[in-house]
């Protein structure tokens, strides 16, 4: 029995089979969430051969409604919740939330607490950069560099564990200081050793990844953005510094001990994936340098959290009505928190501003147009897109 083509098409339509192809010469490709290059983040690509014609970012796989949950939990309990927003460097959400609460209450942090918070933030930055090197080299195919970077990160994890008691989710920075003191001087010595060790290993990464001919070929001229585009799209962090804007929250809006520290802000002009990668590479060096300075300075004497009777009775801990915005420089960019209090023992509203909400949606969608399928993971990784930031 012969069936005409139109009948077949009709039958297929009725059974919902007309999904592919979209147009005559394009097809749709679901890039993620089950994919090595995306961490539970999906990009829907309209492809023409191996070129991307249109990209739509589809976030929301990690959405848990943090901002609602934070309204239902006491001020200090929220620390254990909000740090889950940024998995590679969970100290950043802790720090911004604590800084915002400190500002509403009007606490001046003791110097020791400031030193510890700065050190923890810098350690988080180093570990996040190592994690990023791992991600980048896995996507480029230099598995050796990635494996080594993840192994060096373990040393920092061990230090975090000694300091806070946890490997990944530290729940360490609390409003009014930190949760507990530095264990002993041996920890400081170990931190110094680790910084020296990682510093000594940086040339390895240079040889394998950042000075590699093929890396240059792969990343040069891919995903180019210029200054104007970057500013309009709210790009922050290393991504905007790769376009020639020297914007670093640590300098522009100094917090904690950063005014006293000496460090450079690496700025490149090109704005392509390679420039973004190199800016991150230089920043890793600067972060190690900052850690060295902090160790040189040594933790000041004094209490490690604010001496306030309020902190004695945490369940009844109340914050006066008011609001505050605090932001820090994370490895991904400008990480901000806006906290509103109405005087009760729970926050009225907490809004976390992850940098990836700017990088991962509109910027990504526009940079991907015209890219080859092989460039998609590279662009994704060079933007250092962190899906939980977007989804919250």
């Amino acid at each position, binding site marked *: 029995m012969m069936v005409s083509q139109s009948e077949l098409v009709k039958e297929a339509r009725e059974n*919902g089979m007309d999904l592919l192809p979209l147009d005559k010469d394009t097809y749709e490709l679901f890039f993620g969430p089950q994919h090595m290059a995306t961490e539970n983040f999906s990009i829907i690509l*309209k492809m023409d051969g191996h070129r991307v014609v249109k990209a739509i970012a589809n976030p929301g796989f990690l959405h848990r*409604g943090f901002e609602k949950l934070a309204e239902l939990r006491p001020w200090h309990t929220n620390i254990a919740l909000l740090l889950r927003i940024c998995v590679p460097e969970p100290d950043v959400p802790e720090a911004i939330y604590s800084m915002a609460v400190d500002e509403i209450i009007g606490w001046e942090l003791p110097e020791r607490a400031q030193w510890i918070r700065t050190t923890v933030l810098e350690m988080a930055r180093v570990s996040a950069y190592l994690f990023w090197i791992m991600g980048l080299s896995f996507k480029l195919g230099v598995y050796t560099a990635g*494996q080594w970077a993840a192994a060096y990160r373990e040393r920092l994890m061990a230090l975090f564990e000694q300091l806070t008691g946890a490997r*990944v989710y530290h729940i360490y920075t609390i409003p009014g200081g930190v949760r507990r003191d530095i264990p002993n001087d041996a920890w400081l010595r170990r931190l110094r050793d680790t910084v020296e060790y990682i510093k000594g290993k940086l040339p390895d990464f240079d040889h394998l990844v950042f000075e590699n001919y093929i890396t240059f070929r792969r990343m040069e001229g891919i995903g180019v953005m210029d200054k104007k585009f970057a500013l309009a799209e709210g790009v922050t962090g290393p991504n905007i510094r790769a376009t020639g804007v020297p914007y670093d929250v640590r300098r522009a809006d100094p917090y904690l001990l950063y005014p006293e520290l000496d460090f450079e802000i690496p700025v490149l002009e090109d704005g392509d994936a390679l420039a973004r990668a190199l800016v991150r590479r230089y920043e890793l060096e600067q972060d190690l340098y900052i850690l060295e300075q902090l160790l040189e300075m040594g933790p000041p004497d004094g209490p490690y959290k604010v001496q306030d009777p309020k902190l004695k009775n945490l369940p009844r801990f109340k914050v006066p009505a008011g609001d505050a915005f605090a932001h820090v420089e994370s490895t991904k960019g400008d990480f901000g928190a806006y906290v509103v209090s109405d005087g009760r023992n729970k926050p009225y509203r907490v809004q976390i501003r992850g940098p990836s909400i700017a990088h991962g949606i509109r910027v990504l969608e526009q940079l991907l147009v015209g890219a080859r399928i092989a460039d998609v993971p590279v662009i994704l990784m060079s933007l250092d897109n962190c899906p939980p930031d977007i989804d919250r």
Partner: protein
Amino acid sequence: MVDWRLFEPLFDFARRKSLWIVAFCTGCGGIEMPPLMTSRYDLERFGMMPNPAPRMADLFLITGYVTPKTLKRIIITYEMQPDPKYVMAHGSCPLNGGIYWDAYNAIKHLDRYLPVDVIIAGCMPRPEAVMDGINKIMEMIENGTADGWKRYKENYEYYKKNQDELFGEGWREREARRWIPWLMNRKKEE
């Protein structure tokens, strides 16, 4: 014909010693996967490796909390895996919601929607705990109690009912069509 049942112990040994993992980071536990794969913990000693293709994979690691949007993909990916397949859930979130017990967008009981073989306690579980869970699943394969894939077949109505209750009927088709209008060139369509 050869009676392949004779070789079942050998097959079970091979299944135990060569668990390939689906590369699908479903939650925060995914951040402990790189340390597990690298020199500190090195899961490849046990023959495990991440695999990008679900068709070849045996072990599904649900690394942390599951949102309904992810659960749809998890179910589809799980159904793509060939039998014998095993599911291991990380942390307390897939078990009972954990810290997200009152969150409107996190699954509270994963075993309503998928058969889970092993659940590792902790938030988030340390790599050692994950390795302990893997040991457990290896033991279970050896004595034949890791039968989640059988249960999924036998009780498919139950699982399907729960899935449909959560997502609404016909969610697979809806999900497949969802992005078409946004990908289409609208001018052409009109």
